[in-house]
């Protein structure tokens, strides 16, 4: 009996979320020690906002990583930048309606890029890292080509409204993302037939194929999904920022990978969670924010950021020993 209890204890401790949660708490305490206002509603609220956007990016990234076959989406930042540019250009009579159409449009746009990624990876056999890396330069090039580098973007008030306070530190954007996160995790990833197939395909494509699962399309859809979610994230980003810039989201690509891994997902595929990615995103944003609060030269800041990241990875994401 106590053996069983012990097991449950060990299971909980081994839960892949634990390090990220513990890390976040430590960072919050550390932040509070450094600056009085760190835990102010406003700051928490702003941290949540930034976390929300990175969370969206990490959901996209996680889907592709889970799909296996060295899946990685290096075009997430580019897709986000693209939809941040083009999304707000949609103008209808009512602002609300515009936003509704924007949401659909950015999902479609992102999904299209994802589809090309997926086809490249599955049919043309280009390695995901390279396919998506090149697609990211194609997408950036496309944005410049179409807008001539001069996007006519003015973000409408309805879209800007995502920064409005809801309850306590939670603003509309964070609320949407949290709800979306849970829905996607539970009903898309864990419960849906698609999500379950995704895990199997990501784990062993060959076996999944023999089971009658069409792994090609399952993987392609993972890229489409990632593109669509990244598209949505881009729209959120521009709503949050209020203005659009070329390449404004380029840093989200690697950050999303880091968030997913810190959240306990292995890069080898077939395994992982969206919620973990969200926690990873929180950790990364907390680190960045704390470092902003410390007044130091830029080089040192970047150095410390890297060291913290390495430390987290060493504590959290080591591969199991070869010898058991």
């Amino acid at each position, binding site marked *: 009996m106590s053996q069983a209890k012990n097991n449950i204890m060990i299971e909980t401790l081994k839960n892949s979320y634990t390090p990220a949660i513990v890390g976040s708490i430590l960072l919050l305490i550390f932040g509070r020690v450094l600056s009085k206002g760190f835990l102010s509603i406003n700051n928490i609220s702003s941290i949540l906002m930034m976390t929300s956007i990175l969370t969206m990016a990490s959901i996209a990234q996680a889907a592709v990583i889970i799909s296996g076959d*060295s899946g*990685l989406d*290096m075009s997430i930042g580019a897709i986000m930048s693209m939809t941040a540019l083009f999304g707000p250009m949609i103008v209808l009579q009512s602002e609300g309606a515009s936003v509704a159409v924007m949401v659909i449009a950015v999902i479609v746009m992102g999904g299209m890029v994802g589809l090309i990624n997926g086809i*490249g990876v599955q049919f*043309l*056999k*280009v*390695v995901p*890292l*390279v*396919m998506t*890396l*090149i*697609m990211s*330069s*194609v*997408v*950036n*090039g*496309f944005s*410049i*080509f179409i807008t*001539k*580098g001069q996007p006519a973007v003015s973000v409408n008030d309805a879209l800007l409204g995502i920064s409005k306070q809801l309850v306590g530190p939670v603003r509309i954007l964070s609320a949407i993302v949290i709800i979306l996160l849970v829905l996607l995790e539970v009903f898309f990833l864990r419960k849906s037939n698609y999500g379950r197939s995704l895990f199997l395909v990501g784990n062993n494509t060959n076996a999944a194929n023999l089971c009658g699962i069409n792994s090609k399309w399952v993987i392609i859809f993972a890229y489409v999904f990632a593109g669509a979610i990244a598209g949505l994230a881009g729209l959120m980003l521009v709503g949050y920022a209020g203005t659009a810039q070329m390449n404004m989201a380029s840093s989200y690509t*690697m950050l999303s*990978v*880091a968030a997913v*891994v810190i959240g306990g997902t292995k*890069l080898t595929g077939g395994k992982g969670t969206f919620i973990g990615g969200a926690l990873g995103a929180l950790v990364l944003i907390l680190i960045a924010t704390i470092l902003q609060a410390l007044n130091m*030269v*830029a*080089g*040192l*800041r*970047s*150095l*410390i*950021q*890297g*060291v913290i*990241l*390495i430390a987290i*990875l*060493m504590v959290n*994401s*080591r*591969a*199991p*020993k*070869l*010898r058991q």
Partner: protein
Amino acid sequence: MIKGKKVVSQSFFPSLLLLVIFFAIMGVMNHGLTLSFVKSLILTNTPALCLAIGVTVTILVGGTDISLGSIVSLVNVVIITLAGLGYSITISALIGLLVAVICGVFNGIVIGIMRVNPLLTTFATSTIYAGIALWILPNPGGSIDYAFAKWYMGGLFGFIMTPVMLLILLVFIWAGAIRTPFGLKAYALGCNEKKAYASGINVNGIRVLVHTFAGLTAGVAGICLTATICSGSPTVGATMSLNSIAAAVIGGVSLNGGKGGIFGAILGAGFLSILSSIVVAANFSSYSQSFIKGLILLIGVIASILAGDKVLKDKIKGIFCKGGAKS
């Protein structure tokens, strides 16, 4: 070493083809290639070629390294700073090289001994190395004796340029290394880590060595770059890392490890360099340039993968000579 007929079946063949084709296009567009153009091409791109070699060896053992660009920045900053403090160029360059090797060893230790994922490790260390570079030299600037550039642009026997010598040196070191038992073991490790361990292969040791060598290539790249720009720029290598991976893949190196070699990576990097020039020479409208460049790159990669993939090739053949199997 490589027999003529066999070249076609080598994994680097597609990249060789791409490179030749694009050189030809460049030649046609500019009514012949001038010696000075080729010379500047070599002078400018040797750092990129070095990194392609470095990243390739890490990919071969199933890893990767995206911190090499930051190491290049760091080496550049170290050399310029030391030269500014009055050290001789030689000493400065050697210390720069040493720093690069240390960075490589550090990557190797975290990846090999601490068993952290290589992509993320080097993402984190790239932040660290770039941070240190920026910390040492917050402002671009400083200068170094022009003799350094002269040395770099000059060469042995008048025609073998220094950068080519340096590249050959790196190629030799690696080619030598893979002819020792280390080489086969590295390829084995790239194929399957668990089996490598079960076969008594020193997994940690190989990873550390490989990243050390990658550090060395970044060091040489840093020296070359410094000789090209003769000045310090703390962010100069930032964009180089991902390019080098693309170069490796175009050169037929499998990102899953165990397949390909540095020769392909060099050709791949060569292709990328000539591509930048071609897009300019073709004088596309500035807004379409990056789009077109991306598309060419995509087509190039797909072409090189198709050329190397027997199954796909057969499929395509099958489409063209229909009925071969059926009637």
